[in-house]
């Protein structure tokens, strides 16, 4: 890990993305996020469906325009002109969840991987570049796969082709949205090992969007947990997953099989939708700490119900957006 002075390669500053839902209601999909990705780091962005993690990933890629706030790459705020976006996307590449949907069934593996090169007008050594990307992605010997069509490959091989397509432009950052969710269990580990190897060999930084905390434990350095458009807890995977401070993270970890937290907390109901974010702490209607009276004993229950929490400031230190956890931490230090 770094000493805290390393400049982030990709950051989001006070990022908000709002959509207009049918009926004119405003969905706050991303509602104030600060996030920093350091060079060579694997960051897991975790949360349930609807928490805004995919919208955040798309915004980091420049696929969504933020309503407010900025995305910066190597310290420079992203401009949304076609030309800058094109250049940006050769540096920051997307790996999609479902490799079967991501590949054109009528393109050969060679064409699928070479497409990025052609779009960016790179025409020297196309053959070698494609071969290199395929072997980096673990398809060896690459020539054997050049003329294959997606339907002739297994799920794991297809995902490797998608990853090779992302690698061919030598990006600095990969954003992978649920990269193994559609793969068989035994193949999953191989693809995760590949992502780690790419980081080790090429220094590739990655944001891995996932609902799977086991994946974060397997490969990520840091984790940011999202709930209803905000990051509620972030920090090193070792800290956050073994000793979560936010009640939501604690609940998520507690329901894992063989969880490090012995008592499972099965949360009531489902997250509210993003058009109707609760006042106060956005988690308070489902919060087990508030419901058990522990927050009242700590004297923060009023804050939980009425005071919104400050937005976490990003960086690489462990942070939590919870009145109860903050109050407890202050009690310990004072």
């Amino acid at each position, binding site marked *: 890990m770094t000493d805290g002075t390393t400049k982030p390669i990709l950051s989001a500053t006070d990022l908000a993305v709002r959509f207009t839902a049918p009926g004119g209601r405003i969905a706050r999909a991303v509602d104030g996020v600060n996030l920093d990705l350091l060079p060579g780091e694997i960051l897991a962005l975790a949360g*349930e*469906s609807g928490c805004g993690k995919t919208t955040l990933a798309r915004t980091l890629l420049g696929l969504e325009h933020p309503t407010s706030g900025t995305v910066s790459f190597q310290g420079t705020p992203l401009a949304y002109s076609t030309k800058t976006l094109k250049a940006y996307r050769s540096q920051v590449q997307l790996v999609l969840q479902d490799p079967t949907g991501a590949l054109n069934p009528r393109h050969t593996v060679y064409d699928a991987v070479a497409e990025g090169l052609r779009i960016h007008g790179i025409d020297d050594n196309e053959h070698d570049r494609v071969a290199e990307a395929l072997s980096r992605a673990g398809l060896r010997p690459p020539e054997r796969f050049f003329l294959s069509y997606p339907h002739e490959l*297994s*799920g*794991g*091989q297809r995902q490797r082709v998608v990853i090779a397509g992302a690698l061919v432009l030598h990006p600095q950052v990969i954003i992978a949205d649920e990269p193994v969710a559609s793969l*068989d*269990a*035994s*193949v*999953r*580990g*191989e*693809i*995760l*090992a590949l992502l*780690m190897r790419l980081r080790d060999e090429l220094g590739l930084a990655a944001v891995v969007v996932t*609902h799977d*905390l*086991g994946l974060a*434990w*397997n*490969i990520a350095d840091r984790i940011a947990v999202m709930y209803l458009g905000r990051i509620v807890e972030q920090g090193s*995977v*070792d800290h956050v*997953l*073994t000793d979560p401070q936010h009640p939501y993270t604690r*609940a*998520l*970890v507690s*329901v*894992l*099989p*063989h*969880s*490090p937290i*012995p*008592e*499972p*907390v*099965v*949360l*009531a*109901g*489902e997250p509210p939708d993003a058009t109707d974010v609760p006042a106060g702490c956005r988690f308070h209607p489902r919060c087990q700490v508030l*419901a058990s009276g522990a927050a009242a004993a700590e004297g923060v229950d009023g804050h939980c119900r009425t005071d919104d929490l400050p937005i976490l400031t990003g960086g690489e230190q462990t942070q939590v957006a919870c009145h109860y956890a903050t109050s407890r931490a202050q009690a310990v230090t004072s």
Partner: protein
Amino acid sequence: MTPLLEIDDLTITYRSARGEIPAVRGISFGLQPGDSLGLAGESGCGKSTVAAAVLRLLPRGTQVSGRIMLDGEDVLKMSFGTLRVVRWAGASIVFQGAMHSLNPVQRVARQIAEPIVLHEHISASAAEERAVELMTQVGLPTWRARSYPHQLSGGQRQRVMIAMALACSPQLIIADEATTALDVMIQAQVLALIKRLVAERDIALVMISHDLSVLADTCDQLAVMYAGKLVEHGPSHEVFGNAQHPYAQALSAAFPIVGDPDERRNPQGLAGDPPDPAALPTGCSFHPRCPVAMDECTSTTVELRAVRHDWQAACLRVEAEPTQPPAATPSALGVAAGPDARERDARAQERDAGSQERGAGDLRVRATSEDDT
């Protein structure tokens, strides 16, 4: 006591344009009321085919041999009339993907009531009253009775499917990837519900999933399938924590235990791909991917061997059980007897001990959780 479900040498072969495809190749197991069995394996291993066979839901022309005894009657020999009675009332299936299994233009209470009307010949309104009761039991608010499936969330739709499966009080429930598409928290809610219902009603449960860790947490026994055969079958904590078959080991290692330092930054995979059922490898079907394969494995077909009286694995490296007390028996398989496997087992058991204490807590949390979805 005769088992509720007894499957004996079940073999299922699909016919397709590519010829005959052996999907299930001679599997046997039995379940008593109150038993829960997790059936694990990758896509294409035949696990859903087994589920469909129990209620004879396979496509026409499929060749099925062997025996499926459900409460003393052979499902494969039943008349169509008897079969209709057995479906829903004797055994029912909860499928994956509730959106596709529910009728989009019918209110949910009416859908839950449909099997009740057909089986018990009571009026539609009486059946709908029962349906609303069932909805309460699975934690759905009663005002949802008049909703259409699209108005419900994924977790709620899955609960509707479970209510429907319970409608005619079956003795056996088969859950085929019933929680796979759900979020972690919703999955935890649905699993807790299934566990409670199995315990309360003394139902036998077959739960099918690719996720060994979820099965190990929910079921008493685990069976792992590979290429149409059972390769390991035994108590959940043994199969998950101390698997004897190399494939079962790989599958259990593929689901990391969060908090386990050995698995931190160390994803475990298995090279290669599942075999094509139309062109299975010779000998042990797993040998091309097996990290510890021997020469004999390419030619010798291996059947399940006893690891212990209640635990079997189909691997040449499993020695027949010596006639000593089980406690004194060293782990039978060289591969699994490594310190890693034992440590993992010990860790899993420690946590299991913790999770058994959870029982009471589970119910408490659920009592508050289910009426406000």
